[in-house]
């Protein structure tokens, strides 16, 4: 499944994630939030398997419980007073419900970022930044290239020093700090000296502050274009419903009990479709594979 998701062009994935998150950030309609949470959990289950799913469920519950509890304690808006707190402030039904909505919102946001981490490996992030600023992409790429070099060097330094009891995990606290400083300055000194070679190598291979093309291993297929257009039109549709007031849901002073009109339902379905489109495409491919294999 992860492989199939990585067949999408990074721009398609960007369009997908941005539209999904934009809707959650802007529209706080409870049904919309629930749809978002539900589908994000499906993604986690589909791409991460059971252990990751359970871990996320646990994490979601803890952080949701926190927000749900804190909100009614700090916010006293709303008119349906349930009871009064010891400090004399009212605890209102509205603030409890708003807390619950916020909890759903934050956990679905966190969940969506799991999908982000699946869709965007460093290669794709570097590509996306490269579209905006090639030099920033190069800087990122250089940084990511330096990290393992530094890690190896750090391991070397620590090995040599821990034999003579001078690692930063050895000795009294003061000594530890001194050892840490020694290790840090040695690490940085070596890395800086070596970086001059890197710069020479860049110049020798023609890098100069001027225009350069940027290599991309990704190809924008027709289906990516269709995908992006679908996502954006769904987003536009939902935003249309929102700005025309069909999805106005307010929690305070009391719930403006929005009735489930046809346009509301349309917006929900549109959103659910938008969120699950990549999943549908991947599923379709999986099923096709099964079909082909059984045909053989």
């Amino acid at each position, binding site marked *: 499944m992860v492989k199939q998701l990585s067949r999408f062009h990074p721009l398609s994935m960007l369009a997908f994630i941005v539209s999904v998150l934009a809707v959650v950030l802007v529209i706080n309609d409870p049904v919309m939030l629930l749809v978002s949470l539900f589908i994000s959990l499906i993604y986690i289950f589909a791409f991460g398997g059971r252990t990751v799913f359970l871990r996320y469920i646990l994490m979601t519950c803890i952080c949701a419980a926190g927000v749900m509890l804190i909100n009614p304690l700090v916010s006293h808006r709303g008119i349906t007073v349930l009871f009064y707190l010891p400090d004399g402030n009212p605890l209102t039904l509205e603030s409890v419900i708003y807390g619950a909505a916020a909890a759903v919102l934050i956990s679905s946001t966190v969940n969506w970022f799991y999908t982000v981490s699946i869709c965007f490996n460093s290669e794709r992030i570097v590509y996306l930044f490269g579209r905006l600023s090639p030099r920033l992409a190069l800087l990122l790429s250089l940084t990511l290239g330096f990290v393992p070099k530094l890690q190896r060097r750090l391991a070397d330094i620590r090995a040599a020093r821990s034999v003579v009891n001078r690692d930063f995990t050895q000795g009294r606290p003061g000594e530890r700090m001194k050892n840490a400083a020694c290790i840090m300055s040695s690490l940085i000194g070596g890395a800086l000296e070596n970086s001059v070679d890197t710069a020479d190598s*860049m110049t020798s291979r023609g890098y100069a502050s001027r225009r350069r093309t940027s290599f991309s291993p990704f190809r924008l297929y027709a289906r990516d274009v269709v995908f992006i257009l679908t996502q954006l039109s769904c987003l536009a549709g939902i935003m249309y419903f929102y700005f025309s007031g069909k999805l106005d849901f307010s929690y305070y002073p009391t719930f403006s009990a929005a009735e489930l009109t046809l346009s509301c339902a349309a917006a929900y379905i549109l959103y659910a479709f938008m969120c699950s489109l990549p999943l549908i495409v991947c599923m379709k491919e999986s099923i096709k594979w099964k079909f082909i294999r059984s045909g053989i």
Partner: protein
Amino acid sequence: MEVYSLRNLSFRYPGAAENAVNDVSFNVSSGEFVLLCGVSGSGKSTLLRCLKTCLRPHGEHEGEVLFFGETLDGYSHAAQTQRIGFVLSSCDNQTITDTVLHELAFGMENLCISNGEMKKRIAEISSFLGLEGLLDCTIDSLSGGKRRILNLASVLIMQPDVIILDEPVSQLDPVGAEEFAQVIRKVNLEFGTTVIVCEHELDAFFSVADRILVMSEGRLISDASPEVTVKELPEKNPSLSELFPLPARVFIRAKTGCDRVPTDIPTARAQLSKLQPFEKFTPQLTEKPKQKPFVTAENLFFSYSRGSDDVLHGANIKAERGEIMSVVGGNGAGKTTLLHCLGGVKRPYNGKIRIDGADPSDRKSRIRAALMPQDTTALFVKDRLYDDLDEAIADNVSAADRKKLIDDCAGLCILKELLDRHPYDLSDGERQRAALAKLLLTNPQLMLLDEPVKGLDRPSKRRIGELLRRIALGGMCIIIVTHDMDFAAGYSDSCTLIFGGECTHSLPVRDFFTGSTFYTTSARRMTRNIIEGCITENDVLSALGNSDGDDDSGRGTPVDLFCNIKPVSSKEKTHTARPFKAVAAGVLFLLFLACGALSAWLFGAGNTAPAIGGCGLTVLFAVISAIIAADNSFSEVTVTRVRRKRHIMVLSLVSVLVAVPLTIGAGIVIFDDTKYLFISLLIMAECMLPFFAVFEKRVIRTRELVIIAVMCAFCVMGRAVFYMLPEFKPVTAVVIISGATLGAQSGFLVGSVGMLASNMIFGQGPWTPWQMFAMGLIGFVSGIVFSNASSWKSRVTISLFGFFVSVVIYGGIMDPASILMSHLPFTPSSVLACYLAGLPLDLVHGISTALFLYFCSVPVIKKLERIKLKYGLIE
């Protein structure tokens, strides 16, 4: 067609008394394979660098370099990039990006080649050089040999007319070296690419090359085919015959009377077998009394994590005092891991290690071991070799003894003249000796050396070998991991082969090398079945009846540096008393912390008036401690400033004055002032964009860009290393130092890109833009605050500053961000509650930043300044 013609080229480094390259003239024709050799310091690398304008070092040069008949400097940078491929000597440092694919594309991107063409060339070159399966790998996961081939591929892909290689194989193991030499040969023969190689490990190239150029003291002293060179050079300059491959060396010194001197092993064998039949060579051995083993390791099993493959699989090893043991074996056989286990760095999950009867991983035991890593620069931490050697000596040695020890040790390791040099400015051979000296000064009983002679030329290897012999004679046990069979045969007492994590056999060195066919020395390969029993060059020479060969095995006088040194008990220890000022500043700093916490608490409790008083006190304490602390700990560091144009100010001002109010207005109108998160994200983007826009457009030196990248990578590392301590991380300290030394813009970049890149590893989230913004701002602010070199006087000031920005800026942004992210109501009381809740972690963050800055800022800034001065980053 002449590719290169050099006419009387001379080069002199600035401030040097003599020319590094002196009046050199030669031609290289198209399709030729030219090998440039000479002892280290003969100017061959400098000469090579003069063949490409952008790599030519700073200095005066005379004479002409013609490239295809026209002067080299007349070619544009792009033309030179495309036509002259240059592979630098360091394998790791010249890779630029993180993945193989991008590394290959890098040069082509600079030449503005279209995406389609790039893909085509990558496909071609990767199938030619066998990199197909590795395109998506990170460069870090490649083996040394493959990385070398990648270096070559990323240059070849630009389809150059000539490739120049600076010491391409000396860092590789024999198998990798052989493979790489084959590839270069193939490129030369099949593409007709002209090849110029500079190398001191000549065995791989000598017989392949069309021409050998020999340099000595900056002059070109020989320019002829290999056969002619081996014949004529020894007559002109006998000492330089040491450069030749072993067969040539032996035949020249043995004076066999053959008219042709062989340059490779097959010819040498053919010629040897034509001579009279030889008897088995039996050297005179001095029988050593059997001792109790000093180091024993039994059935070691080691793996990096549960379930992963074993790196060590039942390894056994035994070594005595005064013994030099070589451990040989292929790449990834577990040699280095074995060394680390013996040093107690890694703990085997099964098996027993005893060194002098104690377990090395038990820190309380008094075993003294010392480990030399492959990259010896990892051992050096100071700016002067003397200080570095001093750092190695235990604290309980008195000042006079320290000086004596360092002097003795420097004399022993031939470092006397180098004590004032920067460790990184030493040549390879000098650096290895300095590393040995540093190990010796820790007074070890056991020395563990990982590839001590890798990449060294023959004289340097001999010096190291003789030094090790003398040290071992003093009763030290030395265990060496090496790929260099000739070195192992020449200088060790016993040898162990490790294969697949297991020690297959361990024998006295003679039995080991005469008994094995593959893992053996070139002398043995040359004489096998012709003269039995020879394993070193000197053996062959003695067997051939030549006695005037210098005796490598001669053992010098034993060494015992520490025989007259008596440890001072810890009370008498020469302790430099802390200056009063620092203590006072520290106390005031604590008071300031207490006041800050108190006033924050008062605010929280609603007592506004006393809280304001508390704030006043806090500021007072901060100011006083800063003034008191204005000692001169930075007087030795002069911070130079990288000048910048003021685009960034104008752009950010415009953005803040125009775009931000507009965004807020739009937020109020469109979203009824309820979408704080959305609006705040937009505002942050607006604040950050000008920085990135300026970064994209401004002229930046490549070296500066790379240094920024190093600092970003350092941020990532800081988060990774201290991941288990919440908020206790050196990241902010690194960002502040970057801002202070590299300027506000670079400070911003280091902060924001560092956070972005580290989140690629630790997980992106809604928090990423906030962290980028907060860290970037810290870098920017410290750049502005410390832009004036006179405004900072002490490391206490910078530590205080670090504490303030960590708490005020980072905490000040990240705490309310958590309200926005969790959609809690954004009211003054909720913000205050959030600050109070976040205060403990903010304080930890602030204190850790202050501590890191206090201990690290001076050395790190010194290092940055050195780089800036040495490589001319300041206009």
